[in-house]
């Protein structure tokens, strides 16, 4: 991905944004009108086509934070910290979205907006961990210290991701475990995978723009407090 601020780079990023938008429109249309509704849950099951991609993109975003944090600790290059904070912010958006979509699915399916189920509770903790990651950054004025503290939180906090994923196996949960693609209608699998790809394009576009913002803020910070 081109993170440069050149006009050619910006054109490619705009193209990526357009492609992501088209893929999202196509993904939503196929999920709402093309693929058949679930025989047991009915229409509300179609929320899965945005809920699962949101959750996976949140996991992926936090995996990027983890990798960039390790790279920062090893190499001490500010660039890795900027990629990490960009991915963390986007991951927080996708995690909050996952929880809200899940709540909208839970009310007609379980009869409640929220239940202290292991999957839901661990996801809420995941959200708090990465909101904490973003807050930690505001506590340090020194960029090097801020990057180091963030990297530690980015590495330790990632432990929560496998806990969320495995929570449905470890504890008694009313949240269903992932279904096997072999047991599902191939159309359902195809539309789900298409939506995961569309959300990934959205993530890539957001990353390119958020990284651009982080780079600009870094340059402003280097100029001194009068320019921030």
């Amino acid at each position, binding site marked *: 991905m081109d993170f440069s601020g050149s006009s050619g780079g910006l054109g490619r990023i705009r193209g990526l*944004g357009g492609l992501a938008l088209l893929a999202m429109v196509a993904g939503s249309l196929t999920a709402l009108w093309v693929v058949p509704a679930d025989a047991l849950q*009915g229409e*509300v099951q179609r*929320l899965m086509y*945005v809920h699962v991609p949101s959750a996976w993109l949140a996991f992926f975003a936090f995996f990027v934070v983890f990798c960039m944090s390790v790279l920062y600790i090893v190499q001490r290059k500010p660039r890795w910290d900027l990629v990490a904070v960009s991915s963390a912010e986007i991951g927080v958006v996708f995690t909050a979205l996952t929880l809200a*979509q899940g709540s909208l*699915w839970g009310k*007609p399916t379980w009869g409640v907006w929220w239940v202290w189920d292991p999957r839901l509770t661990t996801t809420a903790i995941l959200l708090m961990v990465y909101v904490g990651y973003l807050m930690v950054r505001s506590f340090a004025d020194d960029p090097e210290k801020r990057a180091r503290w963030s990297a530690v939180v980015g590495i330790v906090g990632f432990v929560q991701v496998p806990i969320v994923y495995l929570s449905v196996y470890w504890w008694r949960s009313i949240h269903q475990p992932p279904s096997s693609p072999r047991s599902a209608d191939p159309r359902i699998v195809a539309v789900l995978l298409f939506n995961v790809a569309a959300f990934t394009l959205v993530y890539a576009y957001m990353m390119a723009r958020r990284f651009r913002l982080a780079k600009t803020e870094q340059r402003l910070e280097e100029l001194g407090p*009068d*320019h921030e």
Partner: protein
Amino acid sequence: MNSLGFLVAGYVLTWSVLLWYVWRLERRVRNAERVLELSAKVRGPEGPA
């Protein structure tokens, strides 16, 4: 609200949040770049006095 209402609410919420975040991100990028440009103009070609 019936099952269809929750479905519509879920998609409206998803699109709204993603579009809001992208819009806000673009505004933040533009503002930060404008501040950087202005500070470059104030400093001039030879840097801070």
